[in-house]
């Protein structure tokens, strides 16, 4: 049975939880991790109204970035230098499951943030599409 007192306690607990979550997220948003591309990235490519969701996972091994586009049964893997640190540009070259070349050219922004971003183009079947994603 929900009495006025338990209702107040529940409300207070919910507010406290919200405050703690905000603090945790605020700290995480300022944190950074090692190699700027390491981690899981989520975003989309394609024009308005015809976009495809995409997840990219990348890991630096000291010489190359080893990555996966859409991990799962239809994963597309890639490996290469990928990052040009002099201007923070990224170039990913891969091949889709049906053999089409994929070239992603993007700029890395907001490097100081945990949720840094990649914005640029996704070229597939000879057509350029807008591309953007953020690090999770």
């Amino acid at each position, binding site marked *: 049975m929900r009495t006025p007192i338990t209702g107040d306690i529940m409300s207070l607990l919910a507010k406290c939880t919200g405050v703690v979550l905000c603090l945790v997220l605020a*700290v995480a948003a300022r*944190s950074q991790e090692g*190699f*700027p591309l*390491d981690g899981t990235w989520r975003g989309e490519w394609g024009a308005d109204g015809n976009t495809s969701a995409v997840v990219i996972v990348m890991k630096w*091994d*000291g010489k190359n970035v080893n990555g996966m586009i859409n991990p799962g049964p239809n994963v597309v893997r890639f490996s290469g230098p990928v990052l040009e*640190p*002099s201007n923070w540009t990224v170039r990913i070259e891969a091949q889709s499951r049906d053999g089409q070349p994929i070239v992603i050219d993007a700029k890395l922004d907001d490097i100081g943030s945990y949720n840094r971003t990649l914005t640029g183009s996704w070229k597939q079947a000879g057509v350029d599409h807008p591309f953007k994603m953020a690090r999770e």
Partner: protein
Amino acid sequence: MRHSRMATLLLAAALAGCDGASDSAASVTPPEASKPAPRYPDGQIRFDAEPGGRGYWGRASVSSLFEKGAQVAMDENGLLASIGDAPRVAPFQPWALALYEYRQRNGLKDDPARACIAPAGPRHLHTAGGFRIIRDPTYDRMYVLFGGGNRNWRVVFMDGREPPNPEEVSGTYFGHQAGHWEGDTLVVESSGYNARFWFSNGGLPHTEALRLTERFSRPDFDTLKYEVTVDDSLTYTRPWTAEWTVEWVDGGEIAERFCEDHKSVGE
């Protein structure tokens, strides 16, 4: 003997005059020799105060981390006087140099310590606020308690345990730390770090591959000698070493100070 001491003092006075130093009496008084480092009853070097005494390790001879022998000017926050000196700070991989320069250029505003993330790794040993190194024979551990940053501690296992398999654990701010003695030097090897902190105030990057080898010694009562070798092949082209000394503050206590977002609150 007395004549010899007088001659030494006169010679010191003459030399002080030659380099244009102050002619005050203080400049010719030989420095008081420091006492030998204290030891535990079993003969091991004691890095803390003797029983009944007080004290802590205070001011470090450096304010930031850079490779031994490098000549680079920095302020107390690790901000370079000239960004052109960045490649001399450490043997960076190209991405790491670019990231270090990025952090320097934006005035270190992304420093996780500003959000009270621990000054982990060697950073807490040159961060203002002081630290103590305490032996715990009951659990065969050493504790490093530090007053700077978020006022935290690290645990060094001295019981010979093996580090965990890095594939089976998540990296942490203080990693896994195992220590042993080489004569009077405490050697601490550590790994298993996460990359969510800066291990120097100047913004030196690292990855989870970071391994540190630290060497602590106390050549005399007032001096801690510290050396750290940074090994992170994903970030640096080779392992590299930094070193500094820290002064003992005899009779003092670490001040009560707590970290709040973007500021430190003290007494």
